């Protein structure tokens, strides 16, 4: 269980608080999307979670343990793929493990396994420049899996892709999650993407963010795109869009 309690956060040197007295609870094992307008604090939420920033007030805990004492619980996948151009695909994927000084052979084996998982077996000796945008994102995802956290923090991983690649990667990610024992927190701007992918959607509200509105997505574990046309789903999308609109005009 992931728990934010009365968290307040302001970037050092800045006047405006991003979070004020913000609380959040999320169960293990879910696929949770976070949406909110641009600049509302979604990326900041992830930065707090992976320890790049510390809240001025309040606490963030995982199963009751404060975050600074937890190690390797969260794996962060940034918006850009951030692959290192001087490393081969395999070496890029191995990076989080080699940093922890795990044995080379073990790292290589795990990396190959992950690359197979993301459908890039046979590409391990290539370099990032030889890959398409979608393939690079999948390498980045494989690298995130190799970081070993139970919680995956995915920050708009598909927003830079064309819509066809994007749709196929969404279906692919949903399928991955069905087979992984991981909790996914997924940031997106896109209401449709959030509905298709997640069990639960969190909308950050207020500026600074003081709370959130939760929505359950009434779709089964195995889903198809056609289900997005169901009337109850269409209504959910409308609700989300209306809420985001009202947030934007405030």
């Amino acid at each position, binding site marked *: 269980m992931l728990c934010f309690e009365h968290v307040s956060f302001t970037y050092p040197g800045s006047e405006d608080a991003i979070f004020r007295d913000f609380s959040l609870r999320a169960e293990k094992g879910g696929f949770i999307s976070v949406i909110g307008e641009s600049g509302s604090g979604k990326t900041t939420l992830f930065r707090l979670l992976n320890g*790049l920033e510390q809240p001025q007030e309040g606490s963030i805990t995982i199963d009751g343990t404060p975050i600074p004492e937890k190690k390797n619980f969260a794996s*962060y996948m*940034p918006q850009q793929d*951030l692959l290192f*151009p*001087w490393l081969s695909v395999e070496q890029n994927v191995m990076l989080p493990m080699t*940093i922890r000084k795990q044995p080379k052979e073990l790292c290589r084996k795990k990396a190959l396994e992950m690359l197979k998982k993301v459908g890039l077996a046979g590409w391990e000796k290539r370099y990032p*420049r030889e890959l398409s945008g979608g393939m690079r994102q999948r390498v980045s995802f494989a690298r995130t899996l190799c970081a070993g956290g139970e919680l995956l923090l995915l920050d708009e991983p598909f927003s830079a892709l064309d819509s066809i690649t994007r749709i196929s990667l969404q279906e692919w990610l949903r399928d991955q999650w069905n087979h992984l024992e991981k909790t996914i927190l997924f940031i997106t701007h896109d209401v449709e993407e959030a509905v298709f992918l997640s069990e639960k959607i969190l909308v950050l509200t207020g500026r600074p963010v003081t709370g959130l509105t939760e929505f359950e997505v009434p779709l089964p574990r195995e889903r198809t795109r056609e289900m997005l046309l169901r009337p109850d789903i269409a209504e959910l999308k409308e609700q989300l869009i209306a809420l985001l609109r009202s947030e934007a005009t405030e």
Partner: protein
Amino acid sequence: MTRITAFKTKYAPPLILGGILLLIWQLAADAVNMGHILPGPLQILQRTWELREALILHHMPSTLLTILCGWLLSVLIGTGLAVLMHFSRHIEAMLHHALIVTQTIPVMCISPLFVLWLGYTMGARLIAVVLSTFYAITLNTFDGLQETDTKKKELMRTYGANRLQIFLRLEAPSALPKLFTALKMTIPWAVVDAAVAEWLGATQGLGYFSKRMISKMDGAAVFAPLLILSVLALLGMAVLELAERKAAGYRSEL
């Protein structure tokens, strides 16, 4: 076919320009007809050929040694300072202005002093070469290190990387293309300053030889060692370009 196109776009223009300039030079030299002070390219080539043994076997080795040792020393000092400055803001603040001051000194004017201190030794010449080249290396390498993508650094931190790991696996490779820029910039300087240092204090070497030929009013022989120096500089550049393509071909992807 593509080879021919590559030749046309890449090598033909400099060759044509070079050919035209050499032709003008030759024609002018022939017209003036005072070979001892204005030799043409053909006379220089001929004189180089006549002097080949003395130049290549006797004088080139010591010059080459000065260039290589001086330049390598400079690379060591230059990158070392850059790394120190990168790791400590205090050291950076301390060295920043001191380093600029070293660059305001004309090496040519101060080199005789090194000769007074150290005599006609290699040491005196090395100081001159290092002084003229290390700063460009420090500055470029430091820039390269500092400009490392913050997002990549943060990603490394989320993997639990320590300061040294971030340096070795991210910052150093990120700075490598800039280091190569500095290496390519400084190779010709090292060649020139090694020759200048030999002018001012040596009993051997291509620079020394050139100076001696001036007093003999042998214009073509003044140019002959310079021709060899140019060839050395060009060879050095070619080797560096090759190494850069192998080791830092990712410049555009940073």
